[in-house]
């Protein structure tokens, strides 16, 4: 069973926006200069991002690190509310407050082949994982999206990960269907799956296989307040009791998650 190391954030840091790129009508990617977080971040970890000196929105929002190199990290998000709307209008040179890096991350593979399965924006941590994968490990990348509106996003991912395979519900992008159509009927003992995306997708993947579930690592998302393990606002039920998604996760073994207790 995957049991990654818990990780509390190294601290709160200021990050300077290097550039912002609009990928689709609602999806954006931002490069932020933040040397400490860039140096420490591991694939699957995240940051809590907020605007300094603003009390509304108040709390940091958890966003996965999608790349880290040199002094910079990048994040990728979809506009869904007040904070992401503000973030989508940020300009180079502006300062953000970043708490992190935090969470256990995906860790190192324990098999020789990793299939990464992303649902839409769930690609963010998996891009990082893909690029940092040890050379002796085989890797696949599958991305599922809803419809043609995600075409520019898929083009963007293809530049980062040329081997990516696409599935879309309307069949316009890649093959018609969901990411589940891209997965084999059985999970071979040499293979593991790392996944991030909408909960129903991860639940379906987590419950698809009767054998090998311990080799499926799911990156979960819940509402969070503190991002340091303190408030216990983000707990989920696991076979080992309550666990905090922020520091005990966000990556869990599909085997340990009590899927029926998760809403969404």
């Amino acid at each position, binding site marked *: 069973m995957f049991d990654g190391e818990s990780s*509390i954030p190294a601290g*709160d840091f200021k990050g300077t926006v290097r550039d912002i790129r609009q990928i689709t009508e609602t999806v954006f990617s931002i490069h932020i200069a933040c040397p400490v977080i860039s140096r420490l971040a591991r694939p699957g970890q995240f940051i809590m991002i907020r605007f300094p000196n603003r009390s509304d929105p*108040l709390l940091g929002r958890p966003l996965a690190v999608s790349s880290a190199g040199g002094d910079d990290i990048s994040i990728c998000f979809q506009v869904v509310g007040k904070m992401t709307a503000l973030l989508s209008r940020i300009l180079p040179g502006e300062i953000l*407050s970043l708490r992190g890096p935090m969470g256990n991350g995906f860790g190192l593979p324990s098999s020789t082949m990793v299939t990464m399965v992303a649902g839409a924006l769930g690609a963010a941590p998996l891009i990082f994982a893909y690029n940092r994968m040890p050379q002796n490990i085989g890797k696949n990348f599958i991305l599922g999206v809803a419809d043609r509106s995600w075409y520019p996003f898929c083009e963007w991912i293809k530049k980062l990960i040329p081997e990516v395979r696409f599935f879309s519900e309307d069949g316009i992008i890649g093959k018609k269907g969901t990411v589940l159509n891209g997965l084999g009927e059985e999970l071979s003992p040499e293979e593991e799956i790392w996944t991030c995306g909408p909960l129903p997708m991860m639940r379906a993947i987590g419950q698809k296989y009767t054998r090998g579930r311990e080799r499926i690592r799911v990156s979960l998302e819940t509402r969070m*307040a503190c991002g340091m393990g*303190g408030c*216990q606002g*983000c*707990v989920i039920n696991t076979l080992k009791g*309550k666990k905090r998604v922020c520091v005990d996760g966000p990556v869990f073994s599909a085997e340990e998650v009590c899927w029926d207790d998760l809403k969404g």
Partner: protein
Amino acid sequence: MTSKDKSLSVNIGGVLLDSPIVIASGVWPYEEELWSPERLKGVGALSTKAVTLEPRIGNPGTRVWETPSGMLNSIGLQNGGVDTFIKEYLPIVRKSGLPFVVNVAVERPAETEATLKRLNEIREIIPAVELNVSCPNVDDGGMCWGLFPESAAQAVSLAREFWKGSLWVKLTPQSPDIRGVASAAEDAGADALVVANTWLGMAIDTRTARPVFERTCAGLSGPAVFPLALKAVWDVASTVNIPIVGCGGVFSYQDCLAMIMAGASAVEIGTAMFIDFETPARICNGLAGYLEEKVLSNLRELVGIAR
């Protein structure tokens, strides 16, 4: 502020704090790295997560929800019970070297008595207990004890009987008579009052047309409640002679100063730590600068001066 600088030191019910900043209950996890001095700069003391006699798994469903300049929480006292606290977490808490208060959630009398007896057996290593008569997120006990002077007196008297160390009592702002409750707590033997816990609020998820929280109501904290907390401190300070710890939406040194000028001797901070680890150090620096500018030797000179 240097460690030798005592201008910010305060005595809260017999507990000596180098700074007036107390991290509120329910905020600081027991991850060992977070209890090192480097992670606690400017902190005068910490209040532990609430302790109950038996383990509690806390509330199901959504537990946190952001509101304009605030947040609602419905955690429900998730904790491992007093024995786990003493065995596993107390050693970590003590490592910081800072004073701490053990937040004890009032349950049924027999349970509260048993919890306090366990703590009292080791009271030489526990600087104070913070009696929580104000948790809004559980059905049994919690806030109902703090609503009225009679029930508050009963809870504090019970605590006083079984806990012989310093006793802080954390009040609820939901009381229709917080002054009466404060007086009753003082008369029943409280050494200090924490004013106050979260305000009851709620949220509705318009997508599902249902309350966000399974218990419908939850506790509101953050900058949104600061003016309400300040008034509660002002009201209580007009009634009692024991020290008051102001709690509710304190983010800046100006907030802290206002609490002190209203009659508090220290403040607790909670939500502020969720967004900025540097809050205690930042507040202390601001306070030290203010004292210097006003040529004052100690923060105590400011307690209640706005009255």
